[in-house]
């Protein structure tokens, strides 16, 4: 038990939870309208959008998992840096257009745009369900990250986590997207503080960065050079970064944060401003090497933690070892708040999709009554189901399944790239062709991951006599695109569905 750290931790988390309730009064409006509850009324400016998207992308799971990957596997874990750079040109090119068409037609989700674009509610359903399914393990992993720091503090059981999450559910109900938007400001200040202190304090203790890198074995320091006849780890690393970047803004929670901004220009500005977080992420990744250099795994006081949480315990152990206990409390508080922000946005985003793309078109029928109080109630109830599901997930199901499902979720999610991202540029595709391409991508990706025993995300392809390892998500997306393009040519010739498009070219410009 570490009383000082626990007290600091509890005070910080409690403070943030109170802020969540206060957020309902901020930029006050009718929170019984789903555009207000679930999208903050599309009125967030450059700064709030920056915090909100930052809260979405750089989460508790990231802070634990990326250093853990560096700690366990070395250089490969650093793919997180190019990943969170190349995602921004994609944000810059694609999403201002999506914002414009969504604002014009009142869409609050990605699948809603797809339904408007293709007049095909089944394609929109596939896109929506993919988003919700990919989000579920992601919320669970945020709570796993939080549980890891609660465990590291020496608090036993799931009670503290459950209390925090019940409060999270309550303010999500009352404040909607405004709550995570406001809390994300505190979260970021805490994270910046923690990381800056860590990258100053730890290297001083160890005698500088040079000393830290000297203690890392050469094989972990760079990627292995590819053997003759193979592109080896080079294409593995690059496709991992690129494929992850292409999927990033397709997640319901990131799309929600984008659409909640007050203008398309704000999105472009954020594409240039968000890389500031990536520098912090790079430093954070290096915490994995610092933990390695300190030989934390061999210290008896951390043996139980490493046995229980494996490499995920690297960062908590580092904080406990290197910081005075009050500051360890601050750092753990930062990680816990870093879980609450994305968890709330994810629950809200999934609820928006359920309401607009499943309940509306399939349960309620044509007169779904958008903008009514009943509609918002459906969304709120579904958000509660998502949060309860996540708690159930981590208490009942072993954590390794959440990690595996998260891995699969990324592979499934990228399959909606043609339907959402490419469709802001072109109406070449046929809606049914996109649906078939999506199905082919999902099935192939799942099969390959199963062949890898749900552990590896790379697959070696044989192209023109070369061995080309690729991130499975990236490779199966190409297959998906080829299938969708060929089928579109055929279907457009016999049964063109372009007349069903309710958007006009001017809506995107």
């Amino acid at each position, binding site marked *: 038990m570490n009383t000082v750290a626990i007290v600091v931790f509890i005070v910080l988390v409690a403070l943030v939870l109170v802020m969540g309730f206060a957020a309902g009064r901020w930029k006050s409006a009718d929170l019984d309208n789903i555009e207000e509850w679930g999208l903050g009324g599309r009125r967030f400016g450059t700064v709030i959008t920056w915090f909100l998207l930052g809260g979405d992308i750089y989460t508790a799971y990231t802070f634990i998992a990326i250093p853990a990957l560096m700690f366990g596997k070395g*250089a490969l874990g*650093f793919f997180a*840096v*190019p990943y969170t*750079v*190349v995602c*921004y*040109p994609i944000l*810059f*090119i694609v999403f201002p257009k999506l914002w414009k068409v969504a604002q014009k037609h009142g869409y609050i989700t990605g699948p809603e745009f797809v339904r408007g674009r293709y007049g095909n509610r089944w394609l929109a359903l596939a896109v929506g369900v993919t988003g919700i399914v990919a989000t579920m393990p992601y919320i669970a992993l945020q709570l796993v990250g939080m549980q890891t720091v609660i465990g590291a503090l020496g608090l036993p059981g799931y009670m503290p986590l459950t209390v925090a999450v019940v409060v999270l559910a309550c303010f999500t109900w009352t404040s909607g997207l405004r709550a995570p938007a406001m809390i994300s400001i505190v979260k970021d200040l805490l994270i910046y503080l923690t990381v800056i202190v860590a990258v100053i304090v730890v290297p001083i203790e160890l005698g*500088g*960065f*040079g*000393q*830290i*890198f000297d203690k890392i074995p*050469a094989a972990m*320091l*760079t*990627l292995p*050079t590819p053997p003759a006849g193979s592109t080896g*780890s*080079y294409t593995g*690393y*690059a496709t991992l*970064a*690129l494929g992850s970047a292409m999927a990033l803004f397709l997640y319901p929670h990131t799309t929600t944060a984008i659409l909640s901004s007050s203008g398309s220009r704000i999105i*472009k*500005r954020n*594409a*240039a*401003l968000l*890389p*500031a977080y*990536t*520098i912090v992420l*790079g430093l954070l990744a*290096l915490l994995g090497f610092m933990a390695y250099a300190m030989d934390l795994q061999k210290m008896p006081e951390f043996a139980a933690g490493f046995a229980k949480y494996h490499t995920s315990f690297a960062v908590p152990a580092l904080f406990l070892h290197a910081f005075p206990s009050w500051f360890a409390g601050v750092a753990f508080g930062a990680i816990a708040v870093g879980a609450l922000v994305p968890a709330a946005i994810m629950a809200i985003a999934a609820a928006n999709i359920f309401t607009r793309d499943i309940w509306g078109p399939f349960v309620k029928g044509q007169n779904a009554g958008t903008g009514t109080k009943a509609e918002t109630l459906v969304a709120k109830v579904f958000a509660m189901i998502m949060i309860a599901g996540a708690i159930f997930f981590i208490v009942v199901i072993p954590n390794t399944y959440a990690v595996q499902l998260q891995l699969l979720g990324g592979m499934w999610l990228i399959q909606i790239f043609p339907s959402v991202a490419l469709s802001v540029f072109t109406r070449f595709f046929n809606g049914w062709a996109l649906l078939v391409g999506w199905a082919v991508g999902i099935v192939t990706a799942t099969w390959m991951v199963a062949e890898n025993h749900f552990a590896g995300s790379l697959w070696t392809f044989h192209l023109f006599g070369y061995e080309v390892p690729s991130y499975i998500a990236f490779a199966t997306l190409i297959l998906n695109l080829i299938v969708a393009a060929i089928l579109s040519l055929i279907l457009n010739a016999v049964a063109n569905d372009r007349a069903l498009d309710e958007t006009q070219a001017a809506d995107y410009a």
Partner: protein
Amino acid sequence: MKTLLLILIFVINLWVPFYNHTTPTLFGFPFFYWYQMVAVPISALLLYIALRLDTSEDEQ
């Protein structure tokens, strides 16, 4: 021009042979790490230039 800048971001960040070595080091950081860290603000700058080019297009 704008497109070219954005493509450049993908090239400098994803072309692994550019940076998969340990030397030269900088402040004790092997090349692999400091190159990718330096590529972050450079990419942000390219995005900023693309944004400014965009503004002048809007004004025309």
